[in-house]
């Protein structure tokens, strides 16, 4: 079953044609990775999936993007879309408040007020993000005091707290050390049973380790998309081969 389907999608930043005719289906409960050199449009595509590109002035999108068959650029509530499609950013961005309030921010936004219910969500989200043991004694402390890796996992927990269906990860480990990165990768493999994960990564080894499917982008075009093993061991396109063998990018 496909979670996201993208058909003939084009995206312009003003005069710049950033994504050219993208067609892509991403299956449910799998990890899909976007790879490619910087500026190839992979992050732009990711941000189109929860409409964060709407914030960018002069951004224009054409084509058709569907989540479970529903047109996300049609007549839908953007806030509900963003609740269903959570996002973890490249740089961890915890709010300057306590760990607890960070996690509770989303549920409170969506109308949950009961203290008991919030307590339960905070605990389960932190557990899902595999950081409960580290943080359970400092729930009331500022989230800004955590290490970079902890902050990023806190942000994952924060995203999970609103019970999304899809988790978008925009180079979520690029600023982290190898141990933190390993923890997050492990986490992704565990989470894919409940969520559909779509990630942008500049680290090809990471895609190879955890992604089920991989799409390779170059200069705004999707060059190749398929099973990760096939892409890395037996790419169909010359550009893909050149990229994964490290001849450019």
């Amino acid at each position: 079953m496909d979670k996201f389907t993208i058909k003939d999608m084009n995206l312009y930043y003003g005069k710049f044609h950033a994504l050219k005719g993208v067609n892509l289906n991403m299956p449910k409960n799998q990890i899909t990775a976007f790879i490619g050199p910087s500026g190839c449009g992979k992050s732009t595509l990711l941000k189109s999936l929860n409409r964060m590109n709407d914030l960018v002035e002069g951004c224009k999108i054409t084509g058709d993007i569907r989540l479970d068959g529903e047109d996300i650029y049609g007549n839908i509530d953007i806030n509900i879309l963003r609740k269903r499609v959570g996002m973890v950013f490249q740089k961890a961005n915890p709010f300057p408040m306590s760990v607890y309030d960070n996690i509770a921010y989303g549920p409170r936004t969506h109308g949950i007020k009961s203290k008991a219910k919030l307590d339960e969500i905070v605990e389960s989200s932190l557990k899902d993000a595999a950081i409960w043991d580290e943080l359970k004694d400092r729930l009331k402390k500022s989230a800004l005091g955590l290490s970079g890796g902890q902050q990023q996992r806190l942000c994952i927990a924060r995203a999970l707290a609103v019970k999304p269906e899809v988790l978008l990860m925009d180079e979520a480990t690029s600023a982290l050390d190898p141990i933190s990165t390993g923890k997050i990768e492990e986490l992704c493999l565990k989470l894919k049973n409940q969520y559909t994960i779509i990630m942008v990564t500049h680290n090809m080894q990471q895609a190879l380790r955890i992604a089920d499917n991989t799409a390779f982008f170059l200069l705004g075009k999707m060059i190749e998309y398929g099973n990760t093993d096939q892409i890395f061991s037996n790419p169909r396109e010359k550009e893909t081969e050149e990229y994964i063998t490290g001849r450019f990018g």
Partner: protein
Amino acid sequence: MADAINEKQSEIKAINKIAFSQRLKEYKRKPLSLVMYLIVVLAAALSIFALVFLIVYILVMGVPHLTPDLFAWEYNSDNVSCMPAIINTIIITLLTLLIAVPFGIGAAIYLAEYAKRGNKLVKVIRTMAETLSGIPSIVYGLFGMLCFVTAFQWGYSVLAGAFTLSIMVLPTIMRTTEEALIAVPDSYREGSYGLGAGKLRTIVKTILPSAVPGILAGVILAIGRIVGETAALIYTAGSTTGLVDGVMSSGRTLAIHMYMLANEGLHTDQAWGTAVVLLVLVLGINTLSSFIAKKLSSKK
């Protein structure tokens, strides 16, 4: 080529436009957000309205009273001309700048060019300058009265007023000048030293000239404050009507004149007219200052 792209652009039917109806639908689910949005817009409208209303009202009420009589050379109780007050204002302003500008620029040069970073004394100087800029003008007025008028026995005089005001505007001139000096690229300094020029020569011949627009913007800002000042002047320069006769004589500035007219309540029409003159003068001066400052920042 660019035109062709432009044409193509306008043909693109973007799907990511958020229609107003869609936004309204979202607000239906989150009515509190709509309420907050409306409150924000309302508050902004209210502040803009209050501030625009103030200016427009004064212009509408005052402009018809801008008669030639208002600008007659002589002041008397029948014709409360604001001309002498305008001239007094110019004299006090010039005198104040004469005192404050050298001190302000000198202090800024010391802070920007000589003082070492993290120096304790520099910290104290900055704290004091900040304290000065927080002191209300009536306290300056009291000090000026106690120090210049009484202790120095200058009496109510233009000189006492100018000295009081120069302390008041000193932090403004200091701060803007220091910012202008810091903005001068280090390559200028290095270039000048490279030619064998000493520190003093480098400052006077190279750094100061390129900081002039920034300094000017600060000085003009200070002028705006001097022209609008009342509380610091009423018991230093006094409120005598008519043209001053030398720096030791008392004389009212335009702002003091405005206060006197408003307080007496006898010449309401002239008060409106004077309010227009004062408002236009100060806003004009401030516009000039921000214009220069903006020109400066766009050049960089």
